[in-house]
């Protein structure tokens, strides 16, 4: 298993390198000369040149690329063209905000989706099975900004149960993560965006879990588990669900990738100060180091979570040891 994890780590690093390279290329092909944002054409010629040199924009491409790679590794991600803050500082704050919301959404989706999938398979064709499928698919077909908007209109503007946006009450800037987590205002504000993301993604793990449960329930080892006289819940959870989970865990890695898309929309809608919101803002203002940093950070997040799913999978499935020493 250790071998397997090590190899996965290798793949992860290669993927990161590839993503970094692609970002480098894309950002240098984008329309809208980023230099125009900070270097006004009205400035003195000499000043313009000096600033370009300071940003390293006059060097040949390959040299820029090497410097770019070096800066990535040494965490010199540049400064915002707009606020002149270090990109890494901006991201450090935004990253946790995004991770918090994403984790909440993913937990809701996976826990509820997997739980629903198990019950739906157990009571196949029962009312919950039929309703669950329909409701899940309706949510999936509804873009998250519509679900979010409806939630906002009804629960915030009309009924006033939840605040309309942000991450904490205005004027109470939390002092670090712990402080944030201790704020009731934070929990009030995370509910709606979490539900919005959760609802959008729940259909996939739910239906996959349901189907893999039905498949597993037909296996010989389930019949034996029943013949052993185990309680139905033991058969269902310890024997069937544990095996069916393997299918969902693989999927969770892929879902994390898609989740970034929903994240961007939801963060903008609920003014959640995360990387999704930052990505939209920085792209709009051609804040090129920040945008690049945000893309990179989101990529690292997705790739990192994928790696974690692989590790989880190898823990859940003892057979993985074989493939580690086998072909792969």
């Amino acid at each position, binding site marked *: 298993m250790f071998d397997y994890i090590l190899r996965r780590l290798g793949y992860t690093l290669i993927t990161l390198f590839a993503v970094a390279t692609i970002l480098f290329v894309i950002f240098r092909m984008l329309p809208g000369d980023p230099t125009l944002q900070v270097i006004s054409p009205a400035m003195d010629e000499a000043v313009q040149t000096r600033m370009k040199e300071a940003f390293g924009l006059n060097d040949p491409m390959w040299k820029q690329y090497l410097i770019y790679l070096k800066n990535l590794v040494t965490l010199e991600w540049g400064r915002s063209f707009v606020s002149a803050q270090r990109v890494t500082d901006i991201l450090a704050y935004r990253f946790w905000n995004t991770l918090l919301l994403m984790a909440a959404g993913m937990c809701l989706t996976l826990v509820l989706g997997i739980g629903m999938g198990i019950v739906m398979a157990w009571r196949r064709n029962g009312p919950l099975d039929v309703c669950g499928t329909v409701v899940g698919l309706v949510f999936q077909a509804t873009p998250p900004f519509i679900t979010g908007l409806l939630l906002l209109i009804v629960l915030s503007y009309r009924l006033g149960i939840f605040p309309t946006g942000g991450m904490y009450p205005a004027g109470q800037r939390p002092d670090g993560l712990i402080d944030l987590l201790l704020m009731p205002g934070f929990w009030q504000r995370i509910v709606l965006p979490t539900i919005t993301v959760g609802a959008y993604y729940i259909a996939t793990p739910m239906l996959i879990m349901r189907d893999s449960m039905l498949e597993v329930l037909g*296996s*010989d*080892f389930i*019949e*034996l*588990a*029943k*013949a*052993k*006289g*185990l*309680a139905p819940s*033991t058969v269902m959870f310890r*024997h069937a669900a*544990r*095996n069916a989970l393997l299918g969902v865990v693989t999927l969770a890695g892929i879902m994390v990738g898609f989740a970034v898309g929903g994240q961007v929309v939801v963060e903008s809608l609920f003014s959640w100060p995360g990387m999704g919101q930052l990505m939209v803002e920085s792209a709009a203002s051609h804040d090129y180091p920040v945008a690049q940093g945000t893309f990179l950070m989101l990529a690292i997040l997705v790739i990192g979570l994928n790696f974690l799913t692989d590790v989880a999978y190898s823990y*859940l*499935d*003892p*057979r993985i040891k*074989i493939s580690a020493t086998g072909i792969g």
Partner: protein
Amino acid sequence: MTTKAVLEVRDLNVRYNTSAGPIHAVSEVSFDVFGDEVFGIAGESGCGKSTLIRALLRLLSPNGICESAVISFKGHDLRTMPDREFRKDILWREISLVPQSAMNSLNPVYRVGAQIVEAIRAHRRCTRATARERVAELFDVVGLQADLMDSYPHEFSGGMRQRAMIAMALALDPALIIMDEPTTGLDVLVQERILRRIRKIRDAIASSIILITHDIAVIAEMCDRIAVMYGGRFMEQARSLDLFESPHHPYTLGLKNAFPSIHAVGAELISIPGFPPGLIGPQTSCPFEPRCPFRIERCATETPQPVTITEQHEIRCFRSAEAESLRELAKSKATWHCSN
């Protein structure tokens, strides 16, 4: 062999509801299993052997419906026993199973020993350590090294998994062990070794065994009594010796021809032409009628009822009285392969 029946089954029927109509997988099956005996059930693939077992263990798929007059186990009426009680007091503790697909019956994500421990602890109050000691003992009985119990199923060969399944079935000293084709899917040498092991265990334990197989030769030397099943019915039931010395039913005669026998070395192997019956819809004939070389008019319109030949020997055939002459005829290949 004691004379008291451990299991008594009367008039058991199972049908599967399908979109093509009801499949009568088991019809009017009656039998007893006595204490400390091995009761064999032999029959071609699809004749309803596993269905019969699933019905007894309440493992039928939801479309399977079981009706019976009597299922009595050690004096308990299994037909009316609540599910919970059946699960706790009967399953595995009193009736255990070596399933047909023993190869795939171990859960791939748990260690083999842990799965046996689970079976023990589901029915007995004991510590994990005590249960593991029992597993080590059982592994010894079936010829597996005790330190293998912490392996995962995929680390076992087919034969080893089969042994582990047998160990699991022995775990609680049940009154009855059902073995559904315990050697299918294994190569001949491993089959032979497993059978030898089962024979040894049979002599060492007090449990009764129901041994299911499609290979009548396997059953010959292992069983005290045998039922020959065809199209969901028990066609002939007799003591092993009687069945092999004086088989009566045309299907039994055909089966004996089709398998190499230790008693008649050099005898020609003759297959029974045709296919097993479809079992859809109600039966109004002898199920063997389409393939039977001895059929008479009546066979196509009526289902034969059991006829007693001698004590503990009964068959379902209209021509039971002519068994002597049929037996002679059945020895010739021409009987089976041209008259139709």
